[in-house]
């Protein structure tokens, strides 16, 4: 019996009344095919599933809505997906401005629920992403500028560690320094240390007013200067520039807050920059564009950048890269088309461009840690032999490894996928 067949059989032992096992057509995670999904019904079942996988020497990739599966290195091993979809309870107290959501709750459903009472969920991953997935991937979108990063939204987490223990960290209150800030460590850790069961989240009041304006297409330097200025308006909640790195760029700004403030800033944008009002769905379109990769074969990178370094960063990317710049977030996304899924030379060029852009992105404040980037989507062949998390400093990788072996000593959770754990 092949190792794969043996693993397939062993998964049946993990199944139980509390853990559903679904066999399905193979899903490729960077070329590693996974044909089974475990769906625990609650946190205790999730913990049992992880312990059971460990006892059998199996490995699983945690999955929420599947929105961020492209992020990560090629797994060393993946016998099953570990799906949080059944952990779907919401607890919400409007007067408190916080809520608790199971990891499997879809962001769209939670947005709708809290909006009925005048609150806004400040996580800007797509509607079909789950709470657990959006936190594990630290998923962001254009409105993250106004919302704050996911790390600033998560108040507390319940996490099943790779070693199988159910744990809690943080709290449900908006201010807390009780013990280590483990919620920040887990947010963005992609399930490499543990699988999120549920989360306490800080909500924001829904703004009284929101307007979206389009910044007309301008030559690169001019467009950047205008967008940086627009992103710093008091009511700016989102601001983006799009286009080819070597060409003209068009912008989009969302203003949100008190009516008087939004109207004043909108008038200024119209007067100074010729901005024109457009529909609010333009911001949702930006979020969708952020997750797109050129078809049929392409690569997408996330490159942090300081506002003053935007122009040299785009220049380093090369004229044909498609870019989405969030000046207020200090980030840009760059996409490259490949000739084919096996276009090794194209992948090499794309990685080299991203690395050059990252070096340019930190301006004069460069320290050893500056210049980081990560590849968020690529064909399996383009990832082979590379760490998609870019050139993290050696000390940072050593710490990531030290954490991985302590939180997931048997390598049950996505072995090989995270930085510092390259197989």
């Amino acid at each position: 019996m092949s190792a794969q067949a043996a693993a397939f059989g062993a998964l049946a032992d993990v199944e139980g009344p509390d853990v559903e096992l679904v066999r399905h057509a193979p899903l490729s995670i960077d070329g590693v095919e996974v044909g089974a999904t475990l769906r625990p019904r609650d946190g205790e079942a999730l913990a049992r599933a992880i312990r059971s996988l460990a006892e059998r020497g199996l490995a699983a990739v945690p999955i929420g809505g599947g929105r961020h599966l492209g992020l990560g290195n090629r797994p060393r091993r993946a016998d099953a997906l570990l799906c949080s979809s059944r952990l779907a309870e919401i607890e919400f107290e409007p007067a408190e401005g916080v809520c608790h959501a199971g990891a499997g709750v879809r962001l769209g459903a939670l947005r709708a629920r809290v909006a009925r009472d005048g609150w806004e969920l400040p996580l800007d991953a797509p509607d079909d992403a789950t709470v657990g997935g959006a936190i594990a991937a630290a998923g962001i979108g254009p409105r993250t500028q106004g919302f704050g990063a996911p790390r600033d939204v998560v108040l507390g987490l319940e996490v099943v560690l790779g070693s199988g223990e159910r744990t809690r960290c943080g709290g449900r209150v908006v201010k807390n320094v009780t013990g280590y800030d483990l919620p920040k460590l887990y947010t963005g850790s992609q399930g490499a240390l543990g699988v999120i069961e549920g989360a306490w989240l800080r909500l924001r009041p829904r703004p009284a007013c929101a307007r979206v304006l389009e910044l007309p297409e301008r030559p690169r330097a001019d467009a950047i200067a205008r967008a940086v200025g627009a992103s710093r308006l008091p009511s700016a909640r989102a601001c983006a520039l799009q286009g080819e790195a070597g060409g003209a760029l068009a912008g989009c700004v969302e203003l949100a807050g008190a009516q008087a403030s939004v109207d004043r800033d909108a008038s200024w944008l119209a007067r100074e920059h010729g901005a024109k009002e457009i529909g609010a769905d333009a911001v949702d379109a930006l979020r969708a564009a952020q997750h797109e990769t050129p078809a049929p074969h392409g690569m997408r990178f996330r490159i942090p950048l300081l506002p003053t370094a935007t122009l040299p960063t785009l220049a380093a990317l090369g004229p044909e890269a498609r870019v989405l710049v969030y000046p207020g977030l200090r980030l840009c996304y760059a996409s490259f088309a490949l000739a084919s899924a096996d276009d090794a030379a194209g992948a090499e060029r794309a990685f080299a461009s991203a690395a050059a852009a990252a070096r340019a992105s930190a301006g004069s404040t460069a320290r050893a840690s500056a210049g980081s980037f990560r590849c968020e989507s690529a064909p399996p062949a383009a990832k082979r032999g590379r760490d998609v998390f870019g050139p993290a400093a050696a000390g940072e990788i050593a710490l990531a490894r030290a954490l991985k072996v302590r939180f997931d000593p048997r390598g049950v959770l996505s072995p090989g996928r995270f930085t510092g754990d390259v197989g």
Partner: protein
Amino acid sequence: MPDLLTALRAVVGAEGVLARPEELFVYECDGLTLHTGSPRAVAFPRETHEVQGLVRACRAHGVSFVPRGAGTGLSGGALAADGGVVIECSRMDRVLSLDAENRIAVVQPGVINAALSKAALPHGLFYAPDPSSQLACTIGGNVAENSGGPHTLKYGATSNHVLALELVLPDGELVQLGSPTGWSAGLDLVGAVVGSEGTLGIATAVTVRLSPLPEGVETLLAIFPDVVSACRAVGAIIGAGLVPAALEIVDRRTIAAVEASVYAAGLPLDAGAVLLVELDGSAVALPGELARVRALAAAAGASRVEVARDADERARFWRARKGAFGAMGRLAPDLYVHDAVVPRTKLPDVIAGVCAIGDRHGLTLSNVFHAGDGNLHPNISFDRRDPDELRRVLAAGAEILALCVDAGGVITGEHGIGTEKRDFMGLLFGDDDLDAMRRLRAAFDPDGCCNPGKLLPTPRFCAESNPRARGYDRVPFE
């Protein structure tokens, strides 16, 4: 091998090391004077490589070490719990760079909090976290404690403003964590280190976000007949979707102490509580927000609302709040400043419970707190020379923490755990929760030589306390 003191002097010079008992006396505690621990030496580095050298010297001699800023912490985090070496970072006080265009600064850990804002001011920027001790406390200490302050409600605590760290690890190696943009490709190790109370290493350079000065500021004082109605006003303001920069409550006993002191702000002595509200942001939006706050305060029972007419009056309003701790010195020789957080809707009940605990123990207890965050600071004035009173102070403190945890809260919002509350961690967390924290610590400091005895309970107490552990998630909403 040279002895420890010789090794330390080789790194920072003879003038950079204190070791005589009378010199060490001042370093035996921080702002929490009830807990003491005398170091065997105090060393004063000026540069990163000197911190590395000091750490390596300590390691070579098998001695633990404790980073220290200004010593203004309130949980015993900066004392040498097992007689180690204090590495005092106050001489590392340079702003290394200030990039106004990108709104970031890189500072050494000994830079004083208020000095950073002062340096940023000419550029129309400021450093948002503002602990009450901001005239003395250092950025390095703020990083260790994830310090907050009155404006945390809108601007967040230190962790929200630290983008990158240069960190000397407990083995003396140097790592760069995070990036000047605030985004890292891998784990959020900056987030893990901020608030780790100096147990994961010593920050030697801190890259922080600077914020633009708001266009306008409005500050108002609302006078209430009692604390409970002031708390209700806070709930109404939060529930209405307003996000003030600060929402602070000062109770009757505190008002009396402040008005009798040099911090007197003209507060009415017959008031049950005063709510201080600061709104900032877009100048055109402020008048509307101010009107809404006035109406909500009146509806909650405010007998009078005063709006500061100018900067002097704003300073007078804040004097009542920021001078409160100093004014307590009039009441008794000692002051125990407690710190806990509860869900905001539980504030009225919890405050009533806290006062009842103080009364039951026959203590002088007053409240001044960050009401918008649900962050309580019950202050107990006492005389430590009276052993019975000291016993009652400690008993009341334990009861207050239990009350807050029962309400779904946590045992510290901004002061940290330190030595003060490490044995209360079991109120909130179980064995496995605490073990996860130990794993984080061990990944950075496998030998446990960096600020030992802080933050985590001793295994003995942990085992004893665990059966009582109750999580915030088991407390239902109203």
